[in-house]
């Protein structure tokens, strides 16, 4: 059932991207399993109360994977699936990067890498100050880990003992060609985080990691993912990073995801 649903969402994403000639489809496919498990089984959320500060909250720091977030939010009832038809359109609500003022359930307007993670740290600190009992989740990319603010945030989260914070790293190695991160788990450990490394498309392992206890420290879940997962021509193919499928390619993609 879950596999069929993931394929359905991937088809929606491909169609939206083709129609708008926009979107980072492989990035969306890279994070889709993570987001689905998070929203379906882990976070305490209520689509009818998207502005409730005491609910669990999620920040998509790598905002270019927005199509995956839109697919999951629509599936969970935050907005009608028909909104997908407006993706990338002038008056549409769904853009190539998410705008929190337009879309229910989107916590932060991200797109410039290195912003969402410190915002999530702030939400976690603010929730702690206000004595909320919620959890704050944030998803960053491995390329985003090039940004200095990621490591500033890593320091701050540990210093302020933000055990209500869980950071997920979509580790698809897409920027290894530019700057190798080396042993990312060891880096976060040395900053004082609890660290779990999991296969990023295994939903049961994702669930276990995202529900693991971390009573004293923030938790980082490093998810080994495949960029473009599920579509052979896209998988780990840099040319597809920011490229919408044409009509024939869409047909092939939909067939592969059927």
């Amino acid at each position: 059932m879950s596999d069929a649903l993931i394929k359905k969402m991937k088809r929606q994403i491909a169609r939206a991207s083709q129609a708008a000639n926009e979107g980072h489809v492989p990035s969306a496919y890279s994070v889709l399993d993570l987001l689905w498990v998070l929203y379906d089984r882990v976070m305490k959320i209520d689509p009818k109360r998207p502005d409730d500060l005491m609910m669990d909250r999620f920040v998509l720091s790598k905002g270019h994977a927005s199509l995956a977030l839109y697919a999951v939010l629509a599936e969970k009832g935050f907005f009608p699936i028909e909104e997908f038809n407006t993706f990338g359109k002038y008056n549409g609500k769904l853009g190539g990067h998410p705008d929190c003022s337009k879309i229910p359930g989107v916590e932060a307007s991200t797109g410039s890498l290195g912003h969402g993670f410190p915002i999530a740290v702030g939400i976690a600190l603010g929730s702690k100050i206000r004595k909320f009992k919620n959890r704050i989740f944030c998803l960053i990319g491995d390329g985003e880990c090039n940004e200095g603010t990621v490591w500033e945030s890593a320091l701050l989260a540990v210093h302020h003992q933000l055990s209500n914070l869980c950071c997920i790293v979509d580790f698809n190695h897409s920027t290894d060609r530019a700057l190798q991160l080396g042993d990312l788990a060891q880096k976060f450990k040395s900053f004082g985080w609890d660290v779990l490394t999991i296969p990023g498309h295994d939903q049961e392992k994702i669930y276990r990691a995202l529900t693991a206890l971390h009573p004293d420290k923030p938790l980082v879940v490093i998810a080994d993912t495949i960029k473009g997962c599920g579509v052979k021509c896209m998988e780990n193919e840099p040319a597809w990073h920011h490229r919408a499928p044409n009509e024939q390619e869409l047909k092939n993609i939909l067939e592969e995801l059927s």
Partner: protein
Amino acid sequence: MNMRQQFVKTVESQLALNDKLVLLLGDIGVFGFRNAFKQFPDRVFNIGILEQATVSLAAGLAKTGLIPIVHTIAPFLIERSLEQIKIDFGYQHLGGNFVSVGASYDYAALGCTHHCPADAGLLQNIPGMEIALPGTCAEFDTLFQESYGNGQATYYRLSERENSSSQPVKFGQAAILKKGALATVIAVGPVLDHVLPAIGGLDVSVIYYTTIAPFDGQTLRENLAPSGKVLLIEPFYSGTLAWEVCQAARPKLITIDSVGVPREFLNHYGQAHEHDEAIGLTSKNIRGRLEVLING
């Protein structure tokens, strides 16, 4: 009392009154806020020397219903963190407060790394951003209390130097200090003490701005001297407010001159008043420029 001490006093009083207020220090002002650290340990943080993450973190605090204040030295607060202020506060329509020290070349002896005459001009480009330049301690207290919780992103530019007397300021409004016919002199924040001695015996208007964004164009438009000649005296890059002044005067066409900080690295050290002399931000130079403007 100087403006930094007033900042401490004002914020301490508001921390006691408003449990949504959170103070984030960039490892400066820690001694000054020592009592606040003791009184409000869960809302006063020496966050460290990491300005970009601090501004984003402050946005996160705002997303939980809190009212953040971020305080550090102007170039690091504004120039280093400009994108965080733009996107995390401006684009997301979040309320927060940014309070700097080290206005323009207040830290003259520390050199150009610690100068920041570009701050006001940079922040003007962020839609919805508010910018206040108090000229005295009392003016800071008034402006801050009126605006810090208004749901907007607001920049307060503290100055090491202040005017000898306070004016009756109101956030978002200019004050008319004098009305005349030959020219309009616009003074911004702490330069007023250079302006008032310069206008003696001249039939000019003086309009005093302590909030430059939003810019109170109405007061200027309604009180513009009939000559249409304007002299703009600014404590930041010269001409920063020229567009606002021209827009406010429309449809009347005006002649405008400005005295402020030139767009060059002021790579001498010394003290701020020496830089004032070097760039002509003095009563004598303002008088000369005003006479040329009136008689030219």
